[in-house]
């Protein structure tokens, strides 16, 4: 078995800019016309990419009255920030969900970085006796799984993590894929000599890992952290299959159930005349605002990680 996902072969590359400087590529540069066409074309694509985000923001800012009268508009007749005011004044369900999601994202990300960082290091060292076995042990799970039903029964009946905060992050706290990426990252970015000299200076395995190796592997670990954080923040599945009690709902699950409720009620409004008073339904814009604020915090994580992540972009060629 010969899997190898290097995060860029030579260490110097991390300090090089990801794209070569203009001067270097003059000879290969596109003609000014071609470049202009490309820039405009991709610019248009970027604007298209932003449309869904625009849609959801504008929907959350539409006033309830204009929504009832004309539906959602590209540019509503009447704006209103009421939804946000309402969201932050009331909203115990949002606050609980927020709290749950923040705790599980932080805990899950920390666990992922630690477990992946620990697991991958021995696999990167040639003198680890069980290297082959543990590589296969992780890799095999990428190829074969017990299936949803078995997973559901095991997590609920044997591990019994349902209806707890653990359910929201423990199943996402480790990933064989990132183990393989990190293994290669250690291999290619932490020179053997450094590890050996730490050894000679009397550092044991643990000290070498935490004080010498991990600091050198920060870009790789930060990439693992970023992807785990996004994964857990946006996770819906764990909550769907493992949580039945509202006090452990995650943010994504909470906003999903609310969307589900409005759609059902609105579409069946005619059949339910007299049963449900439509004017008493929680406001639709309120729900849109809820969706907007779930995106917020995780996007703020991006610039924080970007420094490393742009380097992490050099996740080099996967070599088969």
């Amino acid at each position, binding site marked *: 078995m010969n899997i190898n996902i290097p995060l860029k072969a030579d260490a110097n590359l991390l300090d090089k800019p990801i794209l070569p400087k203009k001067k270097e590529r003059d000879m290969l540069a596109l003609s000014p016309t071609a470049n202009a066409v490309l820039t405009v074309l991709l610019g248009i694509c970027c604007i298209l990419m932003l449309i869904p985000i625009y849609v959801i923001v504008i929907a959350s800012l539409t006033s309830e009255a204009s*929504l009832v009268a004309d*539906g959602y508009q590209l540019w509503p007749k009447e704006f209103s920030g009421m939804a946000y005011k309402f969201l932050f004044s009331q909203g115990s369900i949002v606050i609980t969900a927020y709290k749950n999601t923040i705790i599980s994202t932080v805990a899950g990300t920390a666990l992922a970085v630690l477990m992946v960082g620990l697991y991958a290091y021995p696999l990167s060292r040639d003198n680890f006796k069980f290297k082959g076995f543990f590589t296969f042990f992780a890799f095999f*799970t990428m190829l074969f799984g*017990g299936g949803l039903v*078995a997973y559901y029964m095991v997590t609920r009946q044997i591990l019994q993590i349902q209806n707890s905060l653990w359910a929201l992050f423990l199943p996402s706290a480790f990933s064989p894929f990132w183990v393989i990426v990190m293994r290669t990252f250690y291999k290619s970015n932490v020179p053997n000599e450094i590890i050996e000299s730490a050894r000679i200076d009397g550092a044991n395995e643990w000290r070498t890992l935490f004080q010498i190796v991990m600091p050198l592997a920060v870009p790789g670990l930060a990439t693992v952290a970023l992807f785990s954080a*996004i994964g857990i923040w*946006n996770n819906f599945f764990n909550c769907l299959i493992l949580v039945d009690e509202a006090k452990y709902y995650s943010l994504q699950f909470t906003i*999903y159930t609310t969307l589900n409720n409005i759609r059902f009620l*609105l579409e069946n409004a005619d059949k339910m005349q007299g049963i449900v008073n439509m004017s008493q339904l929680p406001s639709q814009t309120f729900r849109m605002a809820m969706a907007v604020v779930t995106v917020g915090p995780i996007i703020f994580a991006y610039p924080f990680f970007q420094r490393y992540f742009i380097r992490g972009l050099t996740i080099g060629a996967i070599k088969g």
Partner: protein
Amino acid sequence: MVLPGAIWLLLFSYLPMPGVIMAFKTYKLVKPPADSFIQNKFIYSLIKSPWVGLDNFRYLTLPTNIDATLTYIRNTVLYNLLFMVVGLVLSVALAVMIFEMTNRFLAKLYHSIFFLPFFVSWIVVAYVVYALGSSKGIINSIIVPMGFTPIEVYKEKLAWPFIFLIANIWRYTGNGSIIYLATITGIDRELYEAAAIDGAGKWKQFTHITLPHLIPVIVLLQILAVGRIFGSDFDMFYTLPNGAALVKDVTQTLDVFVYNMLRSTTPLGYPAAAAFVQSIVGFILILITNAIVRKTRPEMALF
């Protein structure tokens, strides 16, 4: 050092594996007697449940169910193939274009924008679909005044392949291009310079230098993707249609089908049989693909 990760793998990945035998049993919950060695209800019941051979699979192919089963298999496989091909082409194209841009600041900005959707969860995308395509959605508020008949995506089967495709492109293209962009960055510039001197245009450079360098990455990712061909992006297929029953035929995939059976009163053996097919066929396909790759280009095989 490998211990925490190994325990996690043991609990969350290896422990469920023997559970695949549920597909060949009629799972009945029995309380283990006090003197039993195994006190866990699930394990005890699993062992005690009677073997029924292929009965669970037969249920999925009964005349009343065969249409549904085939429809969900078709949806799963076709959507996966579509996403594989379109995702690959667009991600590579985006990586090449970003790399060729002369203005480095804009290139970085563009790439960040393309990556941005990856931060947005499928549930928020479900809200966007609702705000755009529901009966009171933005699309209707634009096309109805122009004289078109209003559309409502939750009742429109034809719309869903496009919604899923666009949503998939939107969320994953930027993320998918990262690995190709990184690979292209690693290619020796001198190769291109030599090619340019020999008179190769941009297209020739792409087919003769860039593409051959990308092939190993592409092959690896596609082998892994083939193994997941019976799986699906559960969150997307489950949340975007929002449970709309009228479009079930074009939106439901095996994953969602298994989940829905799991959560209904259907005997557990049935969803277990469907899940078994997913695991085993996926595994076999990955072995076959890898064997083919191994035959033709041994250095690119996964194992």
